[in-house]
């Protein structure tokens, strides 16, 4: 790890002023940043520590039904907040399907949004990576790439965004509140992350020095609480990133879907909102045929970026699974294995 200057601001304004100095990085829990610094992928000249800032760790249930979550709220605290879990169950399920209990106790909402890809080539400083070192090339293209992107990738970068949390957030129209050198602004979560194009080093729309201060879920998102699930396929039962995942949320009235939300994880450099699939579901009966049509629509533009053609059909199937689970109704209590396709619909053991 490189040496760095350590700065501990006392207010958001002080933090933003410090963070705007070139070479600075914001430090939340550090579960991703410190790891990347240990392997030399991140080498910030100064760390601006957010852990002693007041006012960033609240979960506010607002009068209009929206919820505002401070950027320093820890993943576990959000997932277990009774009001949040009841009103946004797919988000809680996604949070609890990610990482380990230790990491969820530390990792923050803001940090989760900004976590870096787990592409092995990005993490190996001896490899070419346009995301880490613009213009150097992409060793993932000719290398081990079975878990890489099938949507929205470019010849410059085929990495995926690793977050589970961001997938239902994209589905439910979450809004990111940002404070920066030029003031405060709001960004729709769906517009927050960037596809690689010719500039994969630009991972989000944040300008230098801009700080995520909060995340908001609109009141409308709670309207899906009765039929909202997250499903995630991993290469081992627990404590692994998604191969593919899906967040599905339905409003069902008189046996018909009146509104549908679907987003996919593990398939692109951003959480992938599938609006074509949502349109295909509107007005349909919540049944297998409609779910399959929706999944086809969601992956219509998919193409392999390497040895990963299998992920396209896998993503269709996880979408169908998430929609099927959502249609069956949000369970009173999350299964022992949140989001796992191996969790039984009720009772029983997973293996």
């Amino acid at each position, binding site marked *: 790890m490189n040496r760095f200057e*350590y700065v501990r601001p006392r207010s958001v304004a002080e933090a933003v002023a410090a963070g705007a100095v070139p070479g600075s990085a914001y430090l939340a829990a550090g579960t991703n940043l*410190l790891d990347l610094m240990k*392997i030399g992928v991140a080498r910030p000249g100064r760390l601006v520590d957010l852990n*002693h800032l007041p006012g960033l760790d609240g979960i506010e249930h607002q009068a209009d039904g929206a919820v505002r979550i401070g950027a320093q709220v820890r993943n576990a605290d959000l997932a277990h907040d009774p009001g949040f879990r009841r009103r946004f169950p797919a988000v809680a399920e996604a949070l609890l399907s990610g990482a380990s*209990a230790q990491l969820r106790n*530390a990792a923050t909402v803001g940090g989760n949004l900004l976590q870096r890809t787990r592409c092995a080539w990005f993490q190996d400083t001896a490899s070419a990576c346009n995301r880490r070192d613009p213009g150097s090339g992409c060793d993932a293209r000719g290398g081990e790439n079975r878990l890489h992107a099938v949507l929205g990738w470019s010849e410059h970068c085929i990495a995926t965004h690793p977050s589970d949390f961001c997938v239902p957030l994209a589905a439910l129209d979450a809004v990111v509140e940002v404070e920066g050198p030029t003031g405060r602004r709001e960004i729709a979560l769906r517009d927050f992350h960037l596809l690689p194009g010719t500039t994969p080093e630009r991972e989000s729309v944040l300008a230098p020095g801009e700080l995520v201060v909060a995340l908001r879920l609109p009141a409308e998102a709670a309207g899906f609480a009765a039929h909202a699930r997250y499903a995630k396929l991993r290469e081992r039962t627990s404590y692994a990133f998604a191969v593919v995942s899906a967040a599905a949320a339905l409003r069902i009235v008189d046996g018909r879907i009146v509104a549908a939300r679907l987003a996919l994880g593990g398939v692109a450099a951003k959480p992938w909102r599938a609006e074509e699939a949502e349109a295909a579901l509107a007005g349909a009966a919540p049944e297998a045929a409609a779910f399959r049509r929706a999944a086809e629509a969601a992956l219509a533009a998919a193409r392999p970026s390497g040895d990963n053609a299998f992920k396209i059909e896998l993503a269709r199937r996880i979408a169908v699974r998430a929609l099927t689970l959502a249609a069956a109704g949000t369970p009173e209590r999350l299964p022992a294995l949140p989001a796992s396709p191996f969790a039984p619909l009720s009772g029983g053991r997973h293996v």
Partner: protein
Amino acid sequence: MSYTITLTINRVPRTLELDDPRITLLDLLRERLDLPGTKKGCDRGQCGACTILLDGRRVNACLALALSHDGAEILTIEGLAEGEALHPMQQAFIAHDAFQCGFCTPGQIMSAIGLVGEGQTGADPERVREGMSGNLCRCGAYRGITEAVVEAARAMAADGQGRAA
């Protein structure tokens, strides 16, 4: 430049001078405070061997910058027993043969105590297994670990110790 922080470690308040901002809680405990019970496995948050309780919550000490946790309370494996009396979780690990080489054991035990305190699993082995998935055991003592955690969770609930570490 040096930094001064205060930490309460195993119930003892300490004022510490750090000459390097890079020090993690794990390296602080092991290399500077003579508390090597907390183990360094992967040093990247993947194995759980370095699990400690930080303000009562289980975390990976390898991914926690010491400077960030100025003022915190830390409990490590060395702070569990009271004299000769082992913590119920330590007793349960012995009773259920929940280790072989023992390297992951301090992290397993601290994680298990954190898990009981979180109150999300009860004594359901399925939920305990999932809740302990951040602690790897290369000897494969998982069966004994699960049995130990389930038994200790029951014992701690009966004693009203769910939150006491």
